[in-house]
């Protein structure tokens, strides 16, 4: 099996991978459809999850088939819409207008351009150094001091999560292995889905009820273990040895699930249950940020762990 895989060219390997995943999804979807004849309510959530998976896999397939440039643009767009949802729910004032224009139309394109042109040294410091110092300046020039620190913190946080975090996903594409993005997304998604399903079935008491009505340490730990294990199994598609893949998957899962929790705390603070869905009538947002928030946290940590450890 392994030698057969190694005999294929990288392109053939990716194609095979997508073939397997689309096959699995088809089987699961057919099974879920057949189950609807029996009990409706139980399967509904699962089918929703499947639909999300279909969309995600399709998007990744298109991104891969169309080449790196297209992937850059794709993630820049996702970042744009995620930031839009974030800013919509974070109240800003008139004086922040220039800073917001800066974030959407200057910082975001430059950051993704830096990634696409492989300016790795600059793209890791562009936002935390230059932008984070420039944003308060733009706000101060706006001449409004009401809740100044709070407004700037919100804006910087939005830029950090939605632009800086997400820009590390396409950056992985340029690290040399075409599978790193897939590895990261698949591992983190597995961990989140396992956690979600376990929480549903175990009916444990929430560990941090003020932040999340579902999160508990037991399901979290099991999700971690399974996510890392899947990462170890997938080591053959990465440049890592199984042990390294396991450790990196673990890091990505911790970052991803904790990030999801942080975003939940933010949502609670704003008094909404989801960035889009539950509150659709009020904000009109699509809930994209709910889907990618774990990636926003996992991608930079994963990227820099890989770069640091392997010294690329």
């Amino acid at each position, binding site marked *: 099996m392994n030698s057969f895989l190694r005999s294929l060219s990288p392109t053939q390997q990716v194609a095979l991978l997508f073939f397997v995943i689309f096959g699995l999804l088809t089987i699961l979807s057919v099974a879920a459809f057949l189950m609807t004849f029996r009990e409706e309510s139980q399967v509904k959530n699962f089918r929703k999850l499947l639909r999300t998976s279909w969309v995600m896999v399709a998007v990744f397939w298109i991104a891969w088939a169309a080449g790196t440039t297209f992937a850059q643009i794709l993630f820049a767009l996702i970042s744009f819409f995620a930031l*839009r949802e974030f800013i919509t729910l974070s109240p800003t004032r*008139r004086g922040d*207008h220039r800073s917001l*224009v800066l974030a959407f139309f200057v910082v975001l394109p430059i950051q993704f351009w830096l990634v696409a042109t492989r300016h790795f040294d600059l793209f890791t410091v562009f936002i935390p150094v230059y932008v984070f110092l420039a944003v308060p300046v733009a706000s101060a020039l706006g001449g409004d001091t009401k809740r100044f620190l709070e407004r700037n913190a919100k804006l910087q946080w939005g830029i950090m999560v939605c632009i800086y975090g997400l820009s590390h996903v396409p950056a992985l594409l340029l690290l040399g292995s075409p599978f790193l993005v897939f590895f990261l997304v698949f591992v983190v998604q597995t961990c989140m889905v396992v956690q979600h399903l376990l929480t549903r079935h175990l009916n444990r008491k929430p560990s941090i009820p003020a932040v999340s009505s579902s999160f508990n340490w037991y399901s979290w730990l099991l999700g971690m273990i399974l996510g890392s294990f899947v990462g170890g199994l997938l080591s053959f598609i990465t440049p890592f040895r199984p042990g390294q893949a396991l450790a990196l998957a673990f890091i990505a899962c911790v970052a991803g699930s904790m990030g999801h929790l942080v975003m939940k705390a933010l949502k609670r603070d704003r008094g909404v249950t989801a960035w889009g869905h539950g509150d659709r*009538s009020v*904000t*009109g947002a699509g809930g994209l940020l709910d889907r990618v928030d774990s990636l926003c946290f996992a991608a930079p940590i994963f990227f820099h762990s890989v770069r640091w450890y392997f010294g690329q």
Partner: protein
Amino acid sequence: LQPLVHVLERGDSLIIFPEGTRGYAEDPGPFKAGLYNLATKFPHAVLVPAWIDNIQRVLPKGEVVPVPILCSVTFGAPIRLEEGEDRRHFLDRARDAVIALRDA
């Protein structure tokens, strides 16, 4: 108001911003008399208050580049001009009906 009267006579609907301008304040400015005049002329026209959330943040007065923030529109229950209601009273009541939708 003549063009508006024509539109209503044809039986079409109108979207009116009765404050007549954009301001720097968080609340809309006081409503102008146009709404009252139309309401007296067309007592059967249904007046639906509507609040556009976030519209101020998209493009504040005096700015050039809009920010792509999501907006939403909330519609309220129709109001009508009461028998013998004072102009100022009616306009303030209409404005309150619009502002009340902000927190809905």
